[in-house]
């Protein structure tokens, strides 16, 4: 059965302490596709993702999973549908890759039932899908940044959720690893139909890999749509306060944002 | 390299900052005098103002007064002086440690100097048959010194240098270990244990001119070092790399300041026992009032520390009357809440 779970937000308001960071956002996340949330620093991208994944309680408005408020869904059941890869995940010292990936099975395990073949299968599939089967017995501490990120993605995969949220999965990686991880996510979306929602700080990577873009500014959604439709110089100026020239990326045929600073600007665009 | 070095931004314009510091300085000196008077006037025995005057004047003239009140006042002089010296030394020590470790939670007591000194003294008594007071002091000093250096070393290993947590944990661990050793030595030796427990509480009541002769020179040296190092310490606050860029010999300053800080704390501990939190609280409060310029922070901390300890001792004598609640207990009770406040205010990256 390939029925997708659908998640969306409705007039969502959230924040920390006294501050309101997400200010009334309606997010219609297309099921089975890759959506990317972009915006300048502190525009609320991470806060939005945290609220969707129930890390942060909503002040008002709602996050609806298949029409139900996520607060009304039992935690374990939610964890089987919605997975989150947070910004700086912590791995216990010395833990082996296969074990860490195995932790992702937590929502599927009952109190007194230990490992079943189903768990083993899910872990193996996750390892295979992320291409790290040969690293299965290595210690996570010893891996490179890109490899480690794959391990975390594998853990999220082992959770076997229909929806996967990722908070800046590429921020601390160098370019080759960034591409590696994003390609992997595209593979997963294609093979498993997982709905992927991620926050990316790089507008160009976002434009390349997203099926759907959500642009935030000041805690509000100011544009939503396919990158080819919405990424224009005007949008870039509104979201990032940046003058730019937007052309078509010759490699991927998606919008490419070329910033215009004060130096090194040749002629008119 | 094209790093532009920026001068540290001042929180307020120079005129206002300087004026405020002068005011604080004046208040500080006034507070010292006031606290001295309070210390002489209050205690387990109430005395009248006239007796205070008489006590002071006879002391100055080197006579013994006949009036009991004046006698009481006179007896308070040594401890007041010791409290002044010890408080100043502890606060200065704390300020120096905080400057070189770049963390607002460095307190010399955290370095386990108390237990180190205790262990040395106990070993001396139990195994070396030490009885003379100078030997006690010498041992205590050595023990405190070695322990502090050890804890500093353990707490500085690894990236990030001496973070507050590493230092505190190193101190706690070392303290626990050393106090087990102390227990091991004391438990079979009842009489030593009995005497030792009095030393375990920081207390300026054992003031004698001989003991103060230990603290005073260290304090003077400490003050000199502080004056000389102050601007270098200011640069150090910007980070090692920037400080080197500004021409500061980082390694050398650190060692000098560290040795001075530890020596100040060790001297006080040797003479008065463990008195904690003064080195933590005072520089922090002064920093809040006057900013982080070491040329003001160090001397004002010394003043503040003197006032704090004198007042702590006075309060202890008043509430503990007819006995006393030792100054070390008072500072511990004050210090814990202050530590909580400081820990809450400090952002995690600074921790």
């Amino acid at each position, binding site marked *: 059965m*390939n029925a997708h779970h659908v998640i969306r937000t409705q007039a969502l308001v959230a924040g920390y302490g006294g501050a309101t960071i997400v200010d009334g956002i309606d997010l219609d996340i297309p099921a089975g596709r890759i959506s990317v949330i972009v915006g300048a620093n502190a525009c609320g991208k991470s806060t939005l993702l945290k609220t969707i994944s129930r890390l942060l309680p909503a002040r008002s408005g709602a996050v609806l999973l298949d029409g139900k408020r996520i607060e009304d869904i039992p935690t374990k059941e939610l964890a089987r549908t919605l997975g989150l890869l947070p910004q700086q995940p912590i791995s216990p010292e010395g833990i082996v890759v296969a074990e860490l990936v195995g932790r992702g099975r937590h929502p599927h395990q009952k109190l007194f039932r230990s490992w079943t073949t189903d768990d083993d299968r899910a872990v*193996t599939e996750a390892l295979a899908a992320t291409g790290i089967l040969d690293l299965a017995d290595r210690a996570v501490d010893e891996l490179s940044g890109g490899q480690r990120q794959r391990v975390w993605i594998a853990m999220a995969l082992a959770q076997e959720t229909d929806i996967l949220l990722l908070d800046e999965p590429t921020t601390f990686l160098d370019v080759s690893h960034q591409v590696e991880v994003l390609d992997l996510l595209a593979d997963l979306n294609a093979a498993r139909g997982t709905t992927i929602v991620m926050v990316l700080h790089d507008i160009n990577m976002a434009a390349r890999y997203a099926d759907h873009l959500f642009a935030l500014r000041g805690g509000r959604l100011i544009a939503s749509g396919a990158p080819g439709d919405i990424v224009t110089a005007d949008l870039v100026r509104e979201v990032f306060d940046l003058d730019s020239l937007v052309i078509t990326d010759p490699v991927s045929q998606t919008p490419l944002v070329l910033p215009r600073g004060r130096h090194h600007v040749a002629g008119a665009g | 390299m094209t790093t532009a070095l920026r001068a540290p931004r001042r929180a307020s314009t120079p005129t206002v900052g300087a004026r405020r510091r002068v005011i604080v300085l004046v208040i500080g000196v006034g507070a010292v005098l006031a606290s001295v008077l309070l210390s002489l006037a209050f205690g387990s025995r109430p005395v009248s103002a006239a007796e205070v005057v008489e006590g002071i004047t006879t002391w100055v003239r080197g006579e013994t007064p006949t009036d009991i009140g004046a006698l009481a006042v006179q007896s308070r002089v040594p401890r007041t002086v010791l409290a002044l010296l010890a408080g100043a030394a502890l606060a200065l020590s704390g300020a120096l440690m905080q400057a070189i470790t770049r963390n607002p939670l460095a307190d010399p007591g955290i370095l386990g100097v108390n237990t180190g000194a205790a262990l040395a003294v106990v070993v001396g008594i139990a195994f070396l048959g030490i009885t003379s007071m100078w030997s006690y002091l010498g041992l205590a000093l050595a023990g405190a010194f070695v322990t502090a250096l050890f804890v500093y070393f353990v707490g500085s290993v690894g990236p990030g240098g001496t973070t507050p947590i*590493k230092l505190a944990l190193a101190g*706690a*661990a070392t303290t626990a270990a050393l106090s087990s050793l102390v227990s*091991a030595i004391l438990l079979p030796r009842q009489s030593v244990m009995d005497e030792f427990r009095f030393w375990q509480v920081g207390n300026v009541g054992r003031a004698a001119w001989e003991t103060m002769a230990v603290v005073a020179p260290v304090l003077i040296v400490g003050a000199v070092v502080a004056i000389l190092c102050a601007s270098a310490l200011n640069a150090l606050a910007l980070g090692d790399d920037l400080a080197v860029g500004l021409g500061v010999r980082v390694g050398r300053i650190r060692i000098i300041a560290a040795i001075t800080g530890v020596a100040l704390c060790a001297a006080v501990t040797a003479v008065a026992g463990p008195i904690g939190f003064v080195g933590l609280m005072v520089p922090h409060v002064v920093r809040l009032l006057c900013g982080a310029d070491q040329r003001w922070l160090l001397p004002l901390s010394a003043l503040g520390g003197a006032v704090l300890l004198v007042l702590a001792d006075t309060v202890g004598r008043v509430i503990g009357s007819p006995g006393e609640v030792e100054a070390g207990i008072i500072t511990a009770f004050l210090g814990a809440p202050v*530590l909580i406040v400081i820990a809450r205010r400090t952002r995690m990256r600074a921790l």
Partner: protein
Amino acid sequence: MPAPTLISDAQLTGVRDARLRRERRRRIALSVLALVAIVLMGAMLMLGNTIYSPAEVIGVILGQDVPGASFTVGTLRIPRALSALLAGIAFGVAGSTFQTMLRNPLASPDVIGITSGASAAAILSLIVLGWGGGATVTLSLVAGIATAVVIYVAARGGESTGGRLILIGIGVGAMLDAVVAYLLVRADVYDVAVAARWMAGSLNGTRMEQIPPLVIAVVVLVPLVVALGRDLRALELGDASATSLGVRVDRTRVLLVIAAVALACFATATTGPIAFVAFLAGPIAARIVGPGSSVIIPAALTGACLVLAADLLGQFAFDTKFPVGVITGILGAPYLIYLLIRTSRRGGSS
């Protein structure tokens, strides 16, 4: 349902076999620990001024009246061995739970001031109020929990509660130590020796009546912690990951803290604070069973072995009898410093 990636049977078996191998290693390590604990218990029951044979010891345990042994073993040694075992389990579980929850091997109830509260109350009760055993235990427990609450509340709010918790705990611990020092100064000379011995963590003179509270605590709370073990391991990954995995982070943490604090306080109230056991049981257990697995039961057994072995050393290895806490303090310290340095080198802290 997501469409699975195609994997071969060989791959599946490979992963599964690796897992079974890891689990087997853990089971073996656990069995060895349990065996060591049993042997040490036996040694405690058999050794002493008079050495009794295993047959005699077993006879006493079964309730028979064995001449000589019934008193020595029954009234003196069995309570002592039991309290060593239970205190070791309690401290081990409490320490490892805290360390896992705070994600810092250096954060343990005896460092962060919690047991200081229990100690101060016990000294107060023993020396100043002159209360007996049961009342001391109760007061100690209440004080310990109150201290933990104060520290927790003071450290709450904002990020990095863990780091703040440690610092505030150390500060509060220092304050409570001052209280103890003050009480000791005011005390009668005779009481001082008693108090000092208690403060060092001692199993001396343990009587059977003291055991039940600790038994109840261990029997009730340790299974609770074990049941929460999987959630605890999810917490190791950080609050965000744990929530994503379906753990009710706040609720689980509160339950675990209460259980761990209660265990530490019950143990402290019974034997006094035994230095470093809570601190070291977890890290030592982790090295024995390997990283990545639940450390609660291994830590319980390690704690028991530490206390038992230390008490045996304290009783028989030297001319004077030393309380168990002194031995653990002296032996534990070098390992602790090593752990500190190693953690610092790794760049770890909370």
